[in-house]
Every structure is written in C-alpha cells, then in structure tokens.
C-alpha cells in the first residue's frame, strides 16, 4: 500500500458519511410500480445493462426503464448478453474513447465470457504484481458549489501491462465513483468481490466547496485522499480488476469522460439496493437447497467476522477519540504551565516551568500524531474491511439470485413439458409445436443458468479464498506499521523526558 507517511492533521472524524444525493435525483429503484418482488431484484442487473444505463442517465423517459423491465421477468435479457459479449461497458456519457481503450489488450472481445476469466487468472506467467499508487496534491478547482477537489493519482510500476513506468493523472472524486460503478456492474453479479468506493459526504464536501479553510475541511480532504488511495490499491491488487480496460483507462488516460449521476450508483446506494434486493429475495422465502456446505459455512463465518470487525472498529474509534482528547488537554496544560512559569519569581523554578510547558507542547503534537496513527492505520483498516465484507455479502446474494433464476427456469421448463404432454394427448399439433419451441428455448436457458450458477459458485470460492489471504496479510502489514509508530512515539517521549530531567534537577 502506498501509504506514505503523510502529516495529515485530521482532528474530528465525526463526519456522518451521509447516504446523500439519492434523494436529490430520481432514483429509479425507489419508485417501482407495484411489481412483484423480483422486479426489485431486477433493478440492479437491468441497470447494469448498457442501453438501459443510457436511459437512466439521460433522464428523458425514466418510465422507459420500467416499461422494459416489466416485459422481462427473467434476468437473461438480451441486453445482458450484450454486456457479456461486447467490449467495455458502454460509456455513460459517450465521448471519444481515449486511445488506450482502442488497443485491445488481452483478447478484448473474450474479456467478458466466463471462460476467459479463468484464463486471465491462471495466466500468472506475466508480471508479478508490482505497483505503487499514491493519491496526492488535493487541489480545489473552480468556485462555489460547482467547485471540486482534483487529486493527483501517481503510479509507479514495472508491469508490462502499462505503457510507461511512472505516470500520473488528475482525477476527481466522482471519477472514482464512476470507476466503481462500472466495475460493480460488470463483476459483482458474476461473483467478483469489487472493492467498495469511499463514501460520499455532503457535509464534508460542502464545507470544502464553500471555501472554509479550517482544520475540519483539511481533515476531511485528507481522510478522503487516504481512502481513495487505499481504494485504488485494493482494486489494482485484484488480478482480474487490474486488467479491466476501465481500470486501465482510469489510471492512464489524461482525459476521462465525466461520470454523471454517480449518486444513484454510489457504493452506498449500490449496497442499499443490494440489501433491498436481498430482503425481497428472503421475503420470497427462498429456501435454497444448499448442496454445498462450504457456502453455508462461509456465510456464517462472514457474518461472524462482520460482527467482530464492527466491535473492533468501535473500540478503536473510542481510542482515537480519547487520544485526540489527550492531545487537547495536554495543550491546555502546557499553556497553564507557561503562565505559571512566566509569573514565577524564582529564576530556576521559572525556567523549569517554562521548559515543562515546552515539553508538554511537544507531547501534544506527539499525541496528535499518534491519534492519526490510530485512525489511519487501525480504524480505517477495520472500517475498510467492514465495507469490503459488504461487497463479499453482495456476491453471495447474487449467487442466491442466480440460483433462484435457475430454479424459475427449471420450474417453467417442467411446466412446459407437462403442457406438451397434455397437448399431445389432446392432439393439438400446432400448439404442440409452439410449446416444443418454448421448451427448446427454456432448455437452453436452464443450461445457461446451470453454467452461470456453477461459474459464480466457482468464482466466489476463489474470491473468498483470496479475500481471506489478503485480509490476513493486510492485517499483519498494518499492525506492524502501527507497532512501529508506537515504538517511535515511546522513543520520542524518552528523548523529551531525558532533556527535561536536568532542568528539573537544576532548581534549587
């Protein structure tokens, strides 16, 4: 992780990361016409289809979305196949595609057929992962409510995947959200754990836009900068996501088409839709015949882990809060000591008290820095993993839904077969032919459904295994960094005390 030791001055982290924006823009999923619960489940996949995306963002005929949706109850809409077999996700606002996207890299057209995924993953023969990303130099662009922060994304790599070894681009927050929404729409429903993008915050951003140059705005920007960096690193460390053309475009191209209406598909919004869908699915009382105990066990394990991580996160947040408080109280005490020193007649005592005030000031800074360590290393690590678990849960849910689709198709096929038998018995040849055609279609569907289900199950197994390994490694790396910061703090303290002792002894 390219978490360079920045000297960020965050103080308060009590930004309520609001699930904002969703109410400001017409959110299609929020106004379903009274459709069966399965429609809610449809929203995500239909949203992820190319042409539908256009209608969504053009806002011209929002009803179109629903009109089309009502026709297709099953998720195997032709649009979805387009998504799977075509090139990169259709541009949200079509713009001249940057040149890097036109040069196909690894079997461009094969990118999205399921089997190709496996090929890419097994192709370890290429570069081993070697990449450093840093997000830096936040710069305010524009004025008033249209202003935004532009961040410099710098990449250093030796991988042959990239055109050069060191390069940088300018990106804004909505670009990151746009990247995430593209990746989520492409990969979540086939079982890949797509790292969630950092949360939006109306309060935080408004302060920055309005030009409030105070500590809390700086803290907010720094918190965001750090989370963007971690987000990118997690995304590129995923072997499949790294090679995605949208990711490559994001990292390399100097101009990026503006991601519009990222509100509706912010990670929070996405997760909410996932949760709604999951609830809807549960309400349909899917009792999935889990033939694979692995999934049930993993689900339990992940639920358990979620609870544990949240608890840990809460404890660390408390620690951060109190450490910041300590920094504050130390500062106040330093001032008191200074006043005592200034008023003191006795020369040596006066000097010692003034030195005391200085030591306390230094300790204030030390505590402040340590609070940052507590926050940026431990607290954000735990928070990131709580959010990541959300993405893992999402893929499990998608698997459930895939299974449900398969079930539906199988049931329908069964019904049609029965109908066929009945019709044959009643001797209605033309209707029989129609049913035979339908059966053939359904058989294909069922086969596809079985393949989908197998594929997603396989992918999830790999992803979860990867997640667990990365989690442990991440944890260890960061804890070591944290311990190092603690040791450093102690050694500084020793220096300060050592320097003060002779001053104290000199009073007499």
């Amino acid at each position, binding site marked *: 992780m390219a978490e360079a030791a920045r000297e960020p001055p965050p103080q308060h982290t009590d930004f309520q990361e609001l699930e904002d924006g969703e109410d400001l823009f017409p959110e299609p999923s929020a106004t379903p016409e009274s459709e069966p619960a399965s429609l809610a489940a449809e929203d995500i996949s239909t949203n992820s289809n190319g042409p539908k995306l256009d209608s969504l963002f053009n806002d011209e005929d929002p009803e179109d979305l629903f009109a089309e949706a009502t026709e297709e109850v099953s998720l195997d809409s032709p649009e979805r196949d387009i998504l799977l077999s075509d090139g990169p996700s259709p541009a949200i606002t079509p713009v001249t595609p940057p040149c890097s996207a036109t040069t196909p890299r690894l079997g461009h057209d094969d990118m999205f057929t399921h089997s190709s995924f496996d090929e890419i993953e097994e192709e370890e023969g290429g570069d081993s992962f070697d990449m450093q990303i840093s997000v830096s130099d936040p710069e305010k662009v524009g004025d008033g409510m249209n202003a935004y922060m532009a961040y410099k994304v710098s990449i250093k790599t030796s991988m042959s995947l990239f055109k050069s070894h060191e390069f940088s681009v300018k990106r804004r927050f909505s670009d990151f959200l746009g990247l995430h929404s593209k990746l989520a729409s492409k990969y979540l429903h086939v079982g890949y754990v797509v790292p969630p993008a950092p949360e939006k915050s109306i309060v935080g951003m408004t302060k920055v836009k309005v030009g409030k140059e105070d500590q809390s705005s700086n803290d907010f920007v720094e918190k965001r900068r750090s989370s963007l960096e971690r987000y990118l690193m997690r995304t590129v460390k995923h072997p499949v996501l790294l090679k995605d053309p949208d990711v490559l475009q994001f990292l390399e191209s100097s101009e990026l088409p503006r991601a519009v209406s990222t509100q509706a598909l912010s990670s929070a919004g996405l997760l909410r839709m996932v949760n709604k869908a999951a609830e809807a699915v549960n309400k349909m009382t899917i009792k999935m015949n889990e033939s694979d105990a692995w999934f049930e066990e993993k689900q339990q394990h992940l639920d358990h882990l979620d609870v*544990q991580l949240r*608890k*840990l996160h809460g*404890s*660390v947040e*408390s*620690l951060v809060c*109190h*450490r910041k*408080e*300590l920094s*504050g*109280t*130390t500062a*106040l*005490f330093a*001032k*008191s*000591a200074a*006043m*005592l020193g200034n*008023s*003191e*007649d*006795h020369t040596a*005592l006066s000097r*010692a008290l003034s030195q*005391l005030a200085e030591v306390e000031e230094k300790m204030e800074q030390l505590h402040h820095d340590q609070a940052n360590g507590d926050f940026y290393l431990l607290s954000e690590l735990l928070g990131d993993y709580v959010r990541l678990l959300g993405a893992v849960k999402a893929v499990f849910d998608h698997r459930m839904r895939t299974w449900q689709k398969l079930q539906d198709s199988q049931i329908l096929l069964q019904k049609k077969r029965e109908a066929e038998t009945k019709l044959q018995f009643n001797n209605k040849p033309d209707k029989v032919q129609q049913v035979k055609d339908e059966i053939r279609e359904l058989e294909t569907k069922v086969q596809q459904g079985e393949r989908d289900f197998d594929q997603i199950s396989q992918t999830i197994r790999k992803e979860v295994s990867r997640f*667990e*390994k990365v*989690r*442990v490694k991440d*944890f*260890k790396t960061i*804890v*070591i960094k944290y*311990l*190092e910061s*603690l*040791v450093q703090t*102690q*050694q500084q*303290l*020793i220096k300060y*005390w*050592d320097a*003060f*002792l002779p001053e*104290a*002894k000199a*009073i*007499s």
Partner: protein
Amino acid sequence: MMEEVKEVTSTLSVHVHNIKVTEVLKDGDTLTFLIVSQKLSGTGEHHVDRTYEDFEWLQQLLFSQEDEPGIQGVIFPSLPAKAHVNPSAKVMKQLGFLGLGEWQLYCKALESYLRLVAAHDILSKNKAVEIFLTSSEPPGRHRAKKNLFNRLSQAVEERRKEGYKDVDEFFQTERNHNLVLTGYAKTAAERFLDVVQSEQKIAVACAHFSASLHLCVDPGEDPDKQAFSKACVKLSEVFDSIKKNMTSVAENNMNTLGLGLDLESRCQEAEREMLFRRTCKLVELEAARRNAEKAKPLKKAAMEEAKKTAEIEFNHICVVAKQEVHRFRAARVKMLQHALVQWCEKQLLTAKESADQLNQQLQAFRGIP
C-alpha cells in the same frame, strides 16, 4: 516531603519527616485513617486511627491559639476538603486529584498536612498536635467551633477588603504576586487532572480493544483462520501492555506532579488567607488611628489605648507574616522541584520499560509467518 528536622525546638515526641497515613478504612459512611509515627526515643511506633472530624478538631485548635502573638500571621497548612464515601460530583470537583482512585492521594495529602503542622515552629508547640498523633483515644469528636480564621469564605463585604492598599511594599508585592499565582496554580492543577483523566480513558479503550481481539480467536483448522487468530492474540497482548503503560503514566502523573500542583494550589490559598487576615488587621488599625485622632477628649484616652493595642497586634502579625512568607517561598520551591524531578524520573522509567516491551512485541509480530 518536607525535610525540616527542627526537632530540637519541637515539643513533639515523634519524628516529623516520616509521619505516615498508611491506610484508609471504610465503615459505612465513615472513612477512618490510620496514622503511624515513629517515636523519637527508641524504636517504638504510634498507631492511631482518626476520622476527618479529628483532623478538623486539630485545625480548629490550631486556629484558636489567641494567646500566641501574631498567630494570624501564620500560613496555616491547608487541610484538604472532606472526603465522602460516595462523593457527589460537586465534592469530586472540589477534591480534584485527591478524589481519584481509592483515596491513596487523599491519604498523601493528609500526610503532607500533618508533616507541615508538626514541622511548624509555632504550631507544633500546640499540645493538640501531640495528642492527635499519639493519643489512642480519638481526640473529642464533638462539633468543631465555627472557624473564624477563614474569613475569605465569609461575607462579601469582607472580601472587598482584600484589595485594600497596603502600607508596606513587601506585602503589597507579595499580595499581588500571590493573587496571580493562586489563580494559575489552581488552573494548572485542574488542567493536569484533565490530562490524567484522558489517559485513564485511553487505558480503558485499550482494554476494551484487547478484549474484543481475544474474542476474534477462531479455533478452526483453516490455516488462514489460524494465522488471523495468532495475529489477534498477539495484538491483544500488545494492547494489554499499552493499557498497563497508560495506567502507569497516569499514576505517575497523579502521584508526583498532580499531588504537587494540588498542594501548591492549596498552599497558595492558605497564604492568601493569611495575607487577607493581615490586611483586615490593617484596615482595623487605620480605623483605630482615625478614631483616636477624631476622638473627643472624653473618649480620647480609650481610643488611644485601642489604637496602641491594634498597632502592637498588627506589628506582631507583620513580623510573623514576613517570616512565614520567606519560609513559604523556600518551601514551595523545594516541594515543586521535588515533585518535578520525581515526575520526570518516573515517567522516564515507564517510557523506557514501555519502549522495550513494544520492541519485543514488534519483533514477535514480525516473526509470525
């Protein structure tokens, strides 16, 4: 604390510098303090138990030594406010550092009080001190007489006299200086208490985190689960030691500089009381002088007499007061130096121990595959 060994002139039968308040016992609502002192002759000890009322009894008797000339010029050692078994928030605020923990600091403060009283030239001669320290019988736990000596806490009109212009530059300077220092010392003690309380909160948060980590341990066979569990256990140990370190840091703060600032603050208050008493006497004296001047021939003689008495009293007070101020100045510098040195030494030791331990734990953590 105070190393004054003036036992030759003292009428006490015990050593002054090692009077100890060793324990505090809770009995329902009452707190009883065990006081141990070493006999001057031989190797015996006195063990007595006293309640706060007993301390108040002592303080009252010291205040009411009216026959002692210039007694009002004495800076009386400050007796801490009363401690209650279940103190209200108001009482806790008043006690400050002394209310922390299980009364260890409070006992230390009572100890300082006794040592200061026993070491004082004038005060130690009062029989009450000997009785208090050595008598096995609790020295009369009746309601103490109303304290006439803490005039500052009384009527508001009295307080206005505090600003009365002095006739003596030495005392005017001292009064100004004391007023400033009293305020700053009190604030410093309060703010240092806030620091200590933040540290204690951090210790609690660390303990919490450590416990939560322990709950993350998974007995599973899975190598990833085992790796994670191991890491959690190690990290839990780390936070355990961080908690211990923070607790030590807070204790060091309380026991050395905290106590010192608290004592300094109360002693400055005590000096303020004394200076105020003197100022009030000055006001009386000036009034007596005016009365004597303006007096009609009939009353003249009486007024002159009153004036002379007032003058003599005032002069006595000034003599004692000046000595006390000098003694006080020297004593507080010594006390603060002692507190600062102890504080620094203890924190340095704690920091070194913590650094060593963290280093070890860091190495252990790196060693986990």
